[in-house]
């Protein structure tokens, strides 16, 4: 094989390896060092370094070095003339007598030091019209000067290394921006949650008998959803839906909401407007969770189609709305109202038994019963439901068999604790 052909094949193979190396998103320093290795090995150059423009484009710091000692440091500062020359793609050959005039100042400042280090060639890395850095190269093992062909190979490989460094910088910037966006998104979500809580408090203040109702419905809904296997994101969403389910009451007369007796048909119609009013308030808002307005609209729908406002039946009702509906009823039954005291727990179980399948979804009722059972048995880290129900509301000796009996009727198998799946 002719030496020139062999040299060409060797250079092509190195260029192919270099392309693969700079495209590797792994360790940056390793990428630059390996790329320098490849360049040096292509022309059998015994020493070299890669200096990168850092901070200001005029300051360059060493990022990879080979054959110049482990403690090698090279800080270069570029003035305008040499910077322009490098930007225009001119290399600087220290071994030759004749130089581009633009390099005069650079040679005065750094020439002696670079020659002392046996650096013979300084080649610029220019990517998209910007100077990314410089590659400093020592002499070839042959002892011959760099040929025109050698300089072409160096230029091509140095450009590759520059692209790799530039790609890494862009990746770092993208990662930083993604992190900033993530933090902003978290902040926005926190603001959203605080705003929703404030709304919930505003809703409940209007109804003097049901203070804390919205917040409790949110919490019960979240507990039921988690028991049904919903993930964190979905569980947070249903909690928000619970907080806001009664937001439509803001447009209902305060006297109707606070009537200390059973209201008449006209007032009842007025009160029953609140799911649609809630939907209309919530629909124009872009919520970070799915279907919040629909859960407000449908939280008074029933499986048998006798609910309102749309008389939906069975699977027409979103699962989230079924959860909020049960949480709403559970809180209504377990808190005092203007015209009645709260129900005893056995009566709540009885209500569930009577209305499951017609008003409530059996899977949702089973999930609430399971969650309650776990808390009573002390199987959970927190006792969130029991805390909301208040001390002494539940007699565990009576509640556990009652819950197990109801669960058996609902076809629940004692070992399938995490039954059910997430749905919007």
């Amino acid at each position, binding site marked *: *094989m002719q*030496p020139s052909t*062999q*040299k060409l094949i*060797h250079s092509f*193979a*190195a260029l192919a*390896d270099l392309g693969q190396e700079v495209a590797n998103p792994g360790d940056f320093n390793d990428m630059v060092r*390996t790329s320098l*290795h*490849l*360049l*040096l*090995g*292509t*022309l*059998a*150059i*015994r020493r070299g370094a890669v200096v990168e423009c850092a901070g200001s484009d005029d300051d360059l710091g060493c990022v990879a070095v*080979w*054959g110049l000692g482990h403690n090698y440091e090279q800080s270069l500062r570029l003035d305008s003339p040499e910077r322009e020359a490098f930007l225009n793609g001119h290399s600087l050959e220290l071994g030759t007598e004749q130089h581009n005039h633009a390099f005069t100042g650079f040679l005065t400042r750094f020439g002696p030091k670079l020659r002392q280090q046996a650096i013979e060639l300084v080649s610029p890395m220019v990517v998209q019209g910007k100077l990314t850095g410089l590659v400093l190269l020592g002499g*070839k*093992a*042959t*002892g*011959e000067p760099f040929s025109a062909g050698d300089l072409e190979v160096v230029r091509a490989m140095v450009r590759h290394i520059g692209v790799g460094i530039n790609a890494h910088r862009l990746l770092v910037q993208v990662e930083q921006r993604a992190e900033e966006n993530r933090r902003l998104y978290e902040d926005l979500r926190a603001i959203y949650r605080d705003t929703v809580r404030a709304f919930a408090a505003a809703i409940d203040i209007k109804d003097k008998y049901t203070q804390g109702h919205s917040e409790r419905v949110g919490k019960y809904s979240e507990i039921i959803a988690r028991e049904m296997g919903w993930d964190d994101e979905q569980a947070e969403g249903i909690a928000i839906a619970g907080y806001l389910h009664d937001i439509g009451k803001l447009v209902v007369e305060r006297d109707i909401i606070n009537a200390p007796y059973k209201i008449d048909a006209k007032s009842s119609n007025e009160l029953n407007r609140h799911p649609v009013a809630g939907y209309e308030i919530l629909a124009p808002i872009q919520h970070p969770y799915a279907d919040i307005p629909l859960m407000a609209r449908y939280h008074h729908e029933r499986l048998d189609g006798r609910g309102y406002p749309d008389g939906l039946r069975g699977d027409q009702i979103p699962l989230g709305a079924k959860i909020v509906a049960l949480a709403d009823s559970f809180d209504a039954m377990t808190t005092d109202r203007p015209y009645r005291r709260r129900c005893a727990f056995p009566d709540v179980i009885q209500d569930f038994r009577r209305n499951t399948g017609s008003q409530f979804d059996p899977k949702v009722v089973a999930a609430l019963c399971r969650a309650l059972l776990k808390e009573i048995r002390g199987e959970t880290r927190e006792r969130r439901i029991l805390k909301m129900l208040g001390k002494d509301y539940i007699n565990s000796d009576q509640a556990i068999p009652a819950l197990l009996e109801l669960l058996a009727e609902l076809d629940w198998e004692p070992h399938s604790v995490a039954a059910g799946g997430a749905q919007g």
Partner: protein
Amino acid sequence: MGESTGASIRSHCIGTTAVVYASDYLNKLTGEKIERECRKQLDGGCRALVINFSDTELVNSIGISILLGIIDIAERNGAQLIFSDLNTQTIELFQMLGLTRHVLLARDEEEALTVLTSYTTQTSTVGH
């Protein structure tokens, strides 16, 4: 005569001469292992190194760069270095790139050891 595999790089010592065996493809991974092994042998008191390329079919650019580094290390330590058992293609590559200006080549390990034994002032390439 001690022998070790030095993290998959085979080597053995004969007196103060270490013979290190290069693998079939001399690239970044295997090159760095050879470099480490050479350093280890020199740090352990060896005064001469033979790198045996009998298994080596291909040397890439990083391999060349690492071999230049080993030449530097040997020079700095005042140790002699001989490459042996190279195939024709690798010899041509080393000649073309100028490595043969800095290191002796021997036909085989035996010749390399003979040269090192009798070596006093010889600086020219032997064999090939």
